């Protein structure tokens, strides 16, 4: 039996990562210089937290909403829940330190600004998003009912 060649793959996609890794290693040595464990935890942790926690959580929530509405015979309503919920959650994700108030004291003393408004404004934006979505859905449902012939009862 002839020895099988090593599964090396083609040379160009091998060369490109090699250059990329060289640069990443050059910068990585400096990135890891101070607190290598902390930085490694953050780098790998960011990928794991996103791929194994955040994404499954929102995907499951989305599937629950879609299936719940489907079971109620209202599959077409999914986007009217998904859009405001996702936008509101996105704003919370990005501005979590300010909205949750975890940096209140530092923020106030550094910038001279009040830190109270962030939670209220996020809630108001969320209310507008959900309210606007509900209004659009109500208008759509009403239009659909009007179009239906009155004999159908």
């Amino acid at each position: 039996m002839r020895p099988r060649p090593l599964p090396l793959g083609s040379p160009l996609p091998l060369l490109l990562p090699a250059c990329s890794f060289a640069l990443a290693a050059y910068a990585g040595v400096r990135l890891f210089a101070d607190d290598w464990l902390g930085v490694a935890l953050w780098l790998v942790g960011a990928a794991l937290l996103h791929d194994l926690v955040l994404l499954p959580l929102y995907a499951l929530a989305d599937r629950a909403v879609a299936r719940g509405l489907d079971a109620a015979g209202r599959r077409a309503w999914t986007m009217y829940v998904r859009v405001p919920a996702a936008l509101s959650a996105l704003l919370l994700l990005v501005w979590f330190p300010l909205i949750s108030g975890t940096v209140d004291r530092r923020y106030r003393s550094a910038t001279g600004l009040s830190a109270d408004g962030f939670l209220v404004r996020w809630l108001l934006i969320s209310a507008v998003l959900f309210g606007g979505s509900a209004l659009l859905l109500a208008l759509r449902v009403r239009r659909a009912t009007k179009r239906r012939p009155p004999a159908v009862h």
Partner: protein
Amino acid sequence: MGRAPFPRVLPAYRRIMRDDDPRLPSSPGFWRSPLRGTWFTSVLGLVLLVGITVLFVTGLVSYAAYNPGLSPVNDQTPDKGILGFFLFAWPTNPYWLYRLTQGLHVTLGITLIPVLLAKLWSVVPKLFALPPARSLTHALERLSLLLLVGGGLFEFTTGVLNVQLDYVFPGSFYPLHFYGAWVFFAAFVAHAALKAPAAVRAVRRQRQEQGDLVSPRPEPATVSRRGALWFVGGASLLLFVTTAGQSIGGALRRTALLAPHGWADPGGGPGGFQINKTAAYAGIDPAETGAEAWRLVVTGRDGRTVRLSRAQLLQLPLHSSALPIACVEGWSTDDQWWRGVRLRDLAALVGYGGDPPDAFVESLQRHGAFRRAALRANQVTDPRSLLALYVNGEDLSPDHGHPARVIVPAAPGVLNTKWVARITFGDL
């Protein structure tokens, strides 16, 4: 007992069944969304290709804006080696240059978050694909993807936390974000070179949808692929309109509903514009800034030194300039009307008439990375560069640097030293 007549067939059969078991994320059937596919991923990928390139370039530009080569006090990443190959003397024209580049960097970064999340969502089945590595090439590619995904999320997370003053990351922001950017960009370039040609082809083709990302048993659609892209774009737009006002300023600051320096200005009146660090936060002792106690020490050629009270400074020719404060955190103020002594006039007092050199500025601040800052000769020479004593027609307020602060066109905010105690002119 007459069973299992085909023992050799079973292992292969079982293997196929396991790979196709839709309860396992390693099986394509596990992923039910009808949106996934090459076209959808390619559109998002090409948006990120352009956007992240702009982020990287504006980030490098921001590093150059600090003039790190001039003095160690300006350089938060002194071990950069060849990673600082691009550095250049930062200009003072146009005076809004840093306001533009850094506003773009931070606002665009925040705006791209939905695109990044959507892109990662669109390719997540590949994360679970088995076997983990088919060849050495494939193994390297997957390791590179860890740097790409981990590095990208690291850059976005540290940036987003830093602008909210939430310093929970492991170390100082500057080296983490700068070296992290190089690690990320190294993986990004390799990924883009491998995938961009196919992505361009997929978008040009406009034809749906091939590739191993397509679900073999999709659920019924609740939204079209185009609808989903509009959704991602809408999310970006929402982040943009609730953030950009902190950089654009004027009446639009009110529209930055959730950005750290949006919504409102601190207080009113002549000093009612954004503050990076208040006097209290910087640990400024009011006893040191009073008319009796405070003296500006200016040192120049051959150690020539003058000590000036604020009253003596006011006897020197005063000049005005309208300049913004632009912070590395992306926010900026509108042009403020500063009035004070030209830096080059101070240099002339200590023996540098006509040929102002670099300057080393020290604050009364006891702590903080930028209590000392170096200015390059072109910044000192610019007639708009002032040691400001007034802003908008009134004395500087304590939070804006009373008794005196530096203001230089196009310089990052932290180089506009507040509560100045000493200026040393000379080549650095």
